[in-house]
């Protein structure tokens, strides 16, 4: 893969991350503005404050993704938030709106898969985005190959306070 291809891959990863950022903000706004009907629909009636809290979390994460120079940690933050959503929804599957809750759970699982994929692509792109700008393979600092320098200072005695802890005597009582 040449440098241009690496750059393209990096740009693509960042585009996807920005998409996830906007999605996060949109979802957060829905959770904030429509907490009551949403809670009713997925069997969480009476838990509107929790949904609004999750909405604030989504918005904060989305802003983080869009604002950060490196969005990868924020995308992983979204994955952590998805895990929280999954845990919350999983405990409501026994409720009155099982079908809707299961549907929401499926949607979150899908979003989680997308988040993980974007985070992994970002990690790969970041790694690829650092091509070696200079060949440092000749910078040994030694006058001879390292193998010939191994142990050249072996005669050096560390000060007593830095000697390794003595091995215990090989006796077992």
């Amino acid at each position, binding site marked *: 893969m040449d440098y241009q291809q690496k750059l393209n891959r990096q740009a693509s990863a960042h585009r996807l991350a920005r998409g996830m950022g906007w999605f996060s903000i949109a979802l957060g706004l829905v959770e904030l503005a429509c907490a009551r009907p949403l809670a009713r629909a997925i069997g969480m009636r009476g838990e509107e404050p929790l949904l609004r809290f999750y909405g604030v979390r989504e918005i904060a994460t989305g802003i983080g993704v869009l604002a950060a120079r*490196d969005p*990868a*940690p924020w995308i*992983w*933050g979204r994955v*952590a938030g998805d895990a929280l959503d999954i845990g919350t929804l999983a405990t409501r599957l026994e409720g009155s709106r099982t079908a809707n809750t299961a549907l929401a759970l499926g949607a979150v699982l899908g979003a989680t898969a997308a988040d993980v994929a974007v985070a992994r692509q*970002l*990690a790969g792109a*970041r*790694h690829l985005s*650092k*091509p*070696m*700008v*200079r*060949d*440092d*393979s*000749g*910078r*040994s*600092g*030694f*006058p001879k190959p*390292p*193998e010939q*320098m*191994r*142990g*050249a*200072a*072996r005669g*050096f005695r*560390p*000060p007593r*306070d*830095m*000697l*390794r*802890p003595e091995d215990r005597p090989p006796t077992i009582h």
Partner: protein
Amino acid sequence: MRALVWHGKKDIRCDTVPDPRIEDPRDAIVKVSSCAICGSDLHLYDGFMMGMERGDILGHECMGEVVEVGPGVDGKLEVGERVVIPFTIACGECEQCQRGHFSVCERSNRNQDIAKKALGHTTAGLFGYTHLTGGYAGGQAEYVRVPFADTTHVKVPSNLSDEQLLFLSDILPTGWQAAVQYDIQPTDTVAIWGAGPVGQMAIRSAILLGAKQVVAIDCVPERLAMAKAGGATTIDFMADSVIERLNELTSGRGPEKCIDAVGMESHVGHTLDTIYDRAKQAVFAETGRPHVLREMFYACRPAGICSVPGVYGGLVDKLPFGLAMNKGLTIRTGQTDVNRWTADLLQRIEEGQIDPTFVITHTVPLGEGPAMYRTFRDKEDGCVKVVLKPSLH
């Protein structure tokens, strides 16, 4: 004079400031010929170390020519002599200095009250490194005042270049002490997290001291190539599992000796714990990101030794100390007792056993220092070590 001055987080400027003057009989003034940006300066740049004040002059790796001495220097240093300045200021007389523990000198920190409150007891004064360690002006400047100058210096010969000698001030003895303080045996595998300047020096030190195998862990291609050139086997933690690779290289037993040459700003994003740490650091709920300590404790062979030259500033979270306790690990750490090692290391440089210039990737005028902080922090342009020249414009 011109100096690199801290104005706040990510705000370093090359300002004109008053020249230093003799304040104490044991002071000397040194005209700086070369200075360097240290990895630990980046903790100040990024605002992760407490105790900096707007207007503080940065820098703790410098060398130059003595231009003035106080009356108490007592002939131990003369005007015109060429010296490297150790980053730890040592009085040479207190009980700790007498034992060679210069980094915890009991007298050189002029802000001992703050240090005692924060640390329980005082540590040595340091150049350009927060008011917790004395608030002394640093050496990224045209001139620097050296307190306790009769003991805080290394006289160096004229036949070697600044570049060969400058790193006696910090990174060479730091890498050396990191290796010496776990008493390397010929059967040892040494794993070193971080192939930055201190990690590179630790690799060379471990090779010279005779380790069977040295493993360097990083993700920056230039640094891994440089580590390999120095005799290390390398692990790219973005491409491979560090634990799996270390176990493969040690027949499943783990390395006997481990070095954390990363410190409080470990890489973020490749594992969940690093994201957790970064989030906590952002809200000041912890001061360091101890991913390397966690991984090192996990990877190290039981009854092994962990050496920590990497700088930590205060509190770290979720440190698996039970793991360290149950595996019987020995942990050795501390700032560097620079003067303890410099005579020996200077001799090794003079004999050609090691040439520290290998680590220099950028040499620029002092005025370009602020831009180089960013380049170094972001590891752009293959940057490993920056040398600043106050005489260049």
